[in-house]
């Protein structure tokens, strides 16, 4: 079992949990967090390298580095792991954000408990991305959700109890749909198929046509709630606003990606026929998300709310592109997941740092921070530019791939909706520049703010890590494009061709 490298994505967090349980002071907690998250980062690098080696050697299996260990025989539940380009990209994203998040919560209260929950959350996240068994996927999904309740409820700010409750309940509601969908998929294979939980197997044998029309909406909505699909997005503004910095980062950066990833991996990958026919319903919903989130962000005054609505808009774009069912748009969706993950983590990190100094997140009460904390302000400007799609940063690449891909759709309805989605780039510019202008430029609003200090070294490390990643994706997109696009061009393309 331990000869498979992927399993270490779960083993390392578990070891971290053990290590954290033994720590006695904040120094030890930090040491464990830093060592563990660095190890995860290194591990994802190694996995990437091995993955590329295998692909270069001509291995064209849909999933590489697979392994499967029986867990519960009667229901065919296995701990089955395996990765393709998309999962590798998601693993890298998660480890980067966990790394940056550890540094962003350097001075948190009750660090031991905080990191315990945070690491448990990341265990769920990593487990989800390496799983190719529906049941273990679902299980890790739940593992990732539950710690969120405590992390927000205990370490949050503002209406934290309300937000924590709302977030958990809504996501749990989503996972109820999901469980229904997963069981449905398990019990309704296509003619002559076997009962199995293994994704690849199910994709090969197919799901019963008639049931797909019921199960596809179930799973799509189930994951869509986590992907902040309109109208199931309202947990996101409150949740993000109340969550502590690292949790916002991890939540918006990685956990929301679980939604997009799941929508693709479970809903569309397993049930392409239903997806093809029902896509238009969800296309309308996600199209609304894109524009609606952007418009809502324009009038918010709380930094985190602005960013949360912006996340609604950007994540809407992810689901939107996935539903286009062509390889370019779907590649774009994954790129957008990467890009948005890094970018929004950067945003939340910076907002947390600014909030930690000014003790307010209301943009009306701040101004001229560029003079006071130039490092954080420049970081914020870069994050903003990435968000509004400046070439050379990741947002542009992702959005353009989505737009170009979506516009290749043969149907006029889809193209028209693509244009609607395109409008979001203007609205994004409006709200980003509004914040940047009010928050960073202009005169200093509050004289007390003049005494504030700029970023400390750990904050700088966290911010610089994320900025570098955003810039690397933005400057050398083709590498990532090939990495995440490959599954769409080979395994998935054949499925799409079949239904068309």
């Amino acid at each position: 079992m331990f000869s498979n490298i992927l399993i270490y994505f779960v083993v390392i967090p578990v070891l971290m949990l053990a290590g954290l349980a033994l720590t006695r002071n904040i120094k030890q907690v930090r040491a464990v967090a830093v060592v563990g998250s660095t190890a995860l980062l290194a591990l994802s690098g190694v996995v990437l390298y091995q993955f590329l080696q295998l692909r270069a050697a001509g291995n064209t299996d849909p999933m590489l580095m697979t392994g499967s260990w029986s867990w519960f025989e009667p229901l065919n539940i296995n701990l089955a792991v395996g990765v393709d380009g998309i999962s590798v990209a998601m693993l890298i994203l998660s480890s980067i954000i966990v790394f940056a998040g550890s540094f962003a919560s350097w001075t948190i209260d009750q660090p031991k408990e905080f990191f315990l929950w945070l690491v448990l959350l990341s265990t769920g996240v990593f487990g989800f991305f390496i799983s190719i068994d529906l049941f273990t996927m679902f299980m890790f999904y739940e593992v990732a959700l539950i710690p969120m309740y405590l992390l927000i409820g205990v370490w949050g700010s503002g209406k934290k109890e309300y937000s924590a409750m709302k977030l958990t309940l809504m996501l749990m509601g989503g996972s109820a749909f999901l469980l229904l969908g997963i069981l449905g998929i398990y019990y309704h294979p296509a003619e002559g198929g076997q009962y199995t939980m293994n994704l690849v197997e199910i994709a090969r044998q197919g799901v019963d046509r008639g049931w797909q029309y019921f199960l596809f909406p179930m799973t799509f909505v189930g994951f869509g709630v986590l992907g902040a699909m309109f109208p199931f997005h309202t947990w996101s503004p409150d949740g993000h606003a109340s969550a502590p910095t690292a949790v916002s980062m991890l939540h918006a950066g990685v956990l929301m990606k679980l939604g997009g990833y799941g929508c693709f991996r479970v809903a569309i990958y397993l049930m392409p026929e239903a997806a093809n026919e029902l896509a238009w319903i969800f296309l309308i919903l996600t199209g609304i998300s894109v524009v609606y989130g952007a418009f809502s962000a324009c009038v918010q005054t709380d930094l985190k709310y602005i960013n949360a609505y912006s996340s609604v808009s950007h994540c809407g774009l992810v689901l939107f592109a996935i539903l286009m069912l062509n390889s370019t748009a779907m590649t774009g969706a994954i790129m957008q997941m990467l890009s948005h993950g890094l970018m929004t983590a950067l945003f939340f990190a910076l907002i947390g740092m600014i909030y930690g100094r000014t003790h307010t997140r209301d943009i009306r009460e701040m101004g001229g921070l560029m003079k006071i904390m130039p490092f954080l302000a420049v970081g914020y400007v870069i994050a903003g530019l990435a968000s509004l799609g400046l070439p050379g940063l990741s947002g542009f690449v992702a959005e353009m791939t989505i737009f170009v891909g979506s516009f290749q759709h043969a149907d006029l309805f889809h193209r028209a909706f693509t244009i609607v989605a395109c409008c979001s780039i203007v609205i994004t510019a409006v709200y980003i520049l509004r914040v940047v202008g009010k928050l960073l430029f202009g005169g200093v609003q509050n004289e007390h703010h003049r005494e504030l200090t700029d970023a400390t070294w750990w904050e700088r490390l966290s911010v610089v890590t994320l900025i570098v990643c955003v810039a690397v994706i933005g400057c050398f997109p083709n590498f990532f494009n090939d990495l995440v696009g490959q599954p769409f061009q080979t395994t998935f393309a054949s499925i799409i061709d079949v239904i068309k």
Partner: protein
Amino acid sequence: MDLSLSSHLILLLPLAMFLILGLTGMKMSHRLAGVLGTLGMGVTLLLAYAVAATYFFSGSSDFVDAAGLRLQYSVFDYTWLEFTDSLVIKLGFFLDPISAMMLVVITTVSFMVHLYSLGYMKGEVGFQRYYAFLSLFTFSMLGLVVATNIFQMYIFWELVGVSSYLLIGFFYTKPSAVSASKKAFIVTRFADLGFLVGILILSFYTRTFDFLTLTNSPEAVMASTGGATFMGASVLTWALVLIFMGGMGKSAMMPLHIWLPDAMEGPTPVSALIHAATMVVAGVFLVARMFPVYLQSSSALMVITVVGAATAFYAAVVACTQIDIKRVLAFSTISQIAFMMTALGVALPTIHEGMGYMASMFHLFTHAMFKALLFLGAGAIIHAVHSNNYTEMGGLRKYMPITHITFLIGCLAIAGIPPFSGFFSKDEMLTAMMNNHPFWGYWMTMVAGLTAFYMFRLYYRIFWWEENKHYAEHRPHEAPLTMTIPLIFLALVSVVAGFIPFGEYVTWNREPYEIHLDWSVAVTSIVTAVVAITIATAFYRKKNDLPDRLTRRFQWLWTAANRRFYFDELYMFITHSIIFRRVCQPIAWFDRHIIDGTMNMFASVTNRASSAIKGLQSGSVQSYVVVYLLGSLAIAAVVCVCLI
């Protein structure tokens, strides 16, 4: 030097400068940062000249064929992002007449501005940042003009937009600068939306982004659309008009011009570089680049002509009433760029072998020089009197002789007085318009006359009129050498540039074309210009009440023009009252109260229901027993009755 190496360096040097100055600038002294930036730009300038010279004069078979046709040549073309097999974004270096010409224009003006800023920006906070941004801008602009495909152009298009945003907002503590930069970015972003959609439509049908493929076989582009139409116009027209919309935004065509006057909040050298000479002509360049495709759609060309002509006139009228000298120059820029646009719009191959295209590019070149000159001159004046308004000036010719002479040369050039460069280019454009339809010719001649009038109005108000009383306490002084050298250089170029045989180098089909003046047009325009200058002289040379009387006579017209015909108010109304109040706020309200309210309602219904029935769960085992017992007895009774 090897062409490939130098063309790489042309792009990489400014980028490297940006990174170096941007990342380590905080630790550098002002002087070091400035000198480093200027040196880097100087090297780029030399390289660009070398590349342009190689392209135009080497006669290599790569660049010109036996018949004298200039070829399009891409020096390098790296794949950057592959969407599909055919839709690929490449980053390349494309050499053809217009890009080579633009290389020269951009590097020249940029170098002059770098040099000039050493003096102008001396001692400003954020001097290093300023140079970093200038390098970023130069990099993006160079990348834009050498783009091998429309998406590369879009990428750099966005980058110049951002560098423009950063530079306009350079004085970020000034609220007006912040809002101006925001406005500039958002307005151009809106236009870029059109550009993007245009690209999407075009690429949907043609399956390519590549300029070579698009422009070498425009008929194939037309054919690929399969005659598809949308709302009465062919999709190609739609695509081209939308792409032109991008150009309208960047080039400040009406009604997307409103950002440019406000952009004058940036430092003056920036206005000279970005908002006069280079970035704002990107729209013209875009149309020129896609010109063979535009020829496929006469409606799209018509749109360009009409927008251009309307903007030219509008901007010229507004320029006559502005008080801020940079605003006057800004509107003059809008008007001149509209001139170029119109010239492109009327340039049909059937008329003088598409002379309008050549003329437009020629004017782009000369205008870049003399408008940069005028802006830098204005900068020197503002530097001296610390005000933007000409009411604070007057009689400066004695105090600032070099500025005075060079500014005058600029004015003469833009007014179209021979033998200054503006005359030649403007004359070619007017000829082209006249030959397309006399209406355009006369209309634009009138605009040219207005141009001469407002430029000389400006000139006289600054340098003649009456000496300002403030001079006694604060005596204006001539600018330092770093600032006057660029002025002198640009003035020299403005004088001689007209004699460049431009038709040799830049034509729409890249075949050489012999320029010959059409004297009937030339005489008309010269006479118009001279008359306009005479009127301006009469009005403004000495202080008198003639202008005031005229103003009072046409008070409503003057006010309307002074307020720029209320475009800003209109936009404020649309954005603030309609989009913000009527769209954004209701949506936010809807989200908080309806969507979120629904979720909260679910929660509160659950809560109420549970508190309503929680009495049943009293915790008293005895009541449970009663209920349980009675329930099971009932079941037992039913069973008994049924079984027996």
